[in-house]
């Protein structure tokens, strides 16, 4: 930037320049046969540096992720025993059975509730709502997604655990996590419904078919892969949520029970990762369980996301 044309070999071009139609002089700016003007090394080097920095950036995205994955997996695999999956947690040792069950029950409950609300919401926003109402409702769930999960947990604690005297339990955790999942599934539903080609609807309308038939037979059918993917991703996200659980389900070593959805603290994997880690319990066998729980959680999340990816790829191939 600081270099002006003045002291450089290319300066001749600027000075004699031939700027504009009138002042252009035929041969002067043209180089002699076979001679190229000296190339600006600085520009070439600048471009090289630019791409090197970009490649470095990509490496900086990938390297920490791999490091993290290797670290988490490595810590768990050294002491891994398959029977931790079916062994009960006993104080700070044993296996992962109750937290595993707890996480599965909490996540399924939350996803069930969130799916009902979200698919209805997504359908309504995509098919029926118009104008400012639509923007307000859409804005609401988008902003809801940005609310820190710990704040949701606190609200759950204030209203459900204390306010309704439910105590820690399955139900408060399920309700809070379902609020967390709603934006993801709603977004997936809305955008996959919006991607259904208009020609499908018009074709059905032109045959005089009722809108609800079109909705079920054509529109929903082609939107299902997208919605399922949204559900899977939402599951992946809430399955790893920890912060809200400290306020709602807390931790215990009992089996989750559908007969006691309140007043019974429920263990879960993500909370175990924290609660059994070196940070909270500097005891070796507890730390091993924490590492095991982290591995199981990581595998769950990766499988869910990859599954979503596969469904999207599969449905795209079959759409053509």
């Amino acid at each position, binding site marked *: 930037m600081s270099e*002006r044309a003045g002291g450089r070999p*290319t300066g001749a071009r600027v000075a004699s320049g031939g700027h504009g139609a009138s002042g252009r002089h035929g041969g002067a700016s043209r180089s002699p046969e*076979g001679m190229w003007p000296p190339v*600006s090394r600085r520009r070439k080097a600048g471009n090289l540096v630019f791409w090197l920095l970009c490649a470095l950036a990509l490496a900086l995205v990938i390297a920490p992720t791999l490091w993290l994955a290797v670290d988490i997996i490595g810590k768990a695999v050294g002491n891994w025993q398959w029977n931790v999956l079916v062994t009960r947690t006993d104080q700070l040792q044993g296996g992962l059975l109750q937290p595993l069950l707890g996480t599965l029950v909490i996540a399924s409950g939350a996803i069930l509730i969130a799916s009902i609300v979200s698919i209805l919401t997504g359908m309504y926003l995509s098919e029926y709502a118009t104008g400012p109402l639509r923007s307000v409702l859409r804005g609401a769930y988008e902003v809801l997604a940005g609310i820190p999960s710990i704040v949701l947990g606190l609200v759950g604690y204030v209203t459900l655990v204390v306010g309704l005297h439910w105590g820690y339990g399955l139900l408060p955790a399920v309700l809070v996590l379902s609020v967390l999942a709603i934006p993801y599934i709603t977004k997936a539903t809305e955008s996959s419904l919006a991607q259904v080609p208009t020609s499908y609807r018009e074709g059905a309308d032109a045959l005089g078919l009722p809108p609800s038939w079109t909705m079920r037979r054509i529109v929903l059918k082609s939107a299902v892969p997208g919605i399922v993917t949204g559900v899977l991703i939402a599951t992946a996200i809430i399955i790893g949520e920890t912060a809200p659980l400290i306020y709602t389900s807390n931790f215990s070593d009992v089996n989750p029970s559908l007969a006691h959805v309140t007043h019974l603290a429920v263990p879960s994997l993500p909370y175990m990762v924290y609660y059994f880690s070196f940070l909270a319990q500097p005891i070796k066998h507890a730390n091993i369980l924490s590492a095991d729980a982290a591995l199981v959680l990581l595998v769950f999340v990766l499988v869910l996301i990859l599954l979503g990816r596969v469904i999207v790829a599969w449905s795209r191939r079959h759409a053509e």
Partner: protein
Amino acid sequence: MSTQADPAQPAEAAGPVRGRVDQAVVTAPHAATAGPVALTTAGLTLGFGTRTILSDVCVDVRRGAVTALIGPTGSGKTTLLRTFNRMNDRVSGYHRKGDVLLDGRSIWHPGVEVMELRRRIGMLFQRPNPFPMSIMENVVAGARAHRLVGKAGMKDVAEKHLTAVGLWGAVKDRLKDSPFRLSGGQQQLLCLARALAVTPEVLLLDEPTSSLDPAATQAIEELVRTLVPDITVIIVTHNLAQALRVADRTIFLNQGRMVENGETRQLFEHPAEEETAHYVAGRFG
């Protein structure tokens, strides 16, 4: 439509000829086409993937003349044009045999810096493509990238080239504005000013008027005539009347082959090849 200048109408609408549009303003000097060769293709065969777009094309482009590339859709004229400044190099599956010589030297020679090549061989596209920056920054964008001008000289260079394309009067009070509010014709003139600001020796025009209205088209055609002989111009056009109006020489391509290369009037009136005659007659009816 020989009209008198409408005072209410801004000057930019009529292009570089301030406010007056005469019918016979464009005078293509079909004489004086002699001169050394600027660009040569030597047995150029080129394709993408399994498709071959150009086969064994050998043409000479005269320096300081306007050369038109004509031919039916898919004849490879745009591909040939984009080869001259190596815009095809990065298209996937690109493969090539043969060579293109600029001033007798291969444009793919390892010593050739592609950025410098493109400074020497400028290009104007089918649709105007201003950059997301102010009008003034647009004009000097290339010149700044090549460090032909410092920050201080920006305004002078912008004025010079905007004047050259006849846009100065229309935009001098809004140099800081976005170019996207200009009309299509004005945007294309802006892009032309931008291309001229890097002082190219050759200018490639890829159907530069195909998205413009007749008045803007006429403005561009008039400008093209003022560029020669300082700049060698190659224009791809599907409009044979346009080729006849602006081009000293014309090259007819068909199905990726060079069929005929000659003086424009000669090629249109007394084509040497039957294919050319057929095409020209068919298009002119």
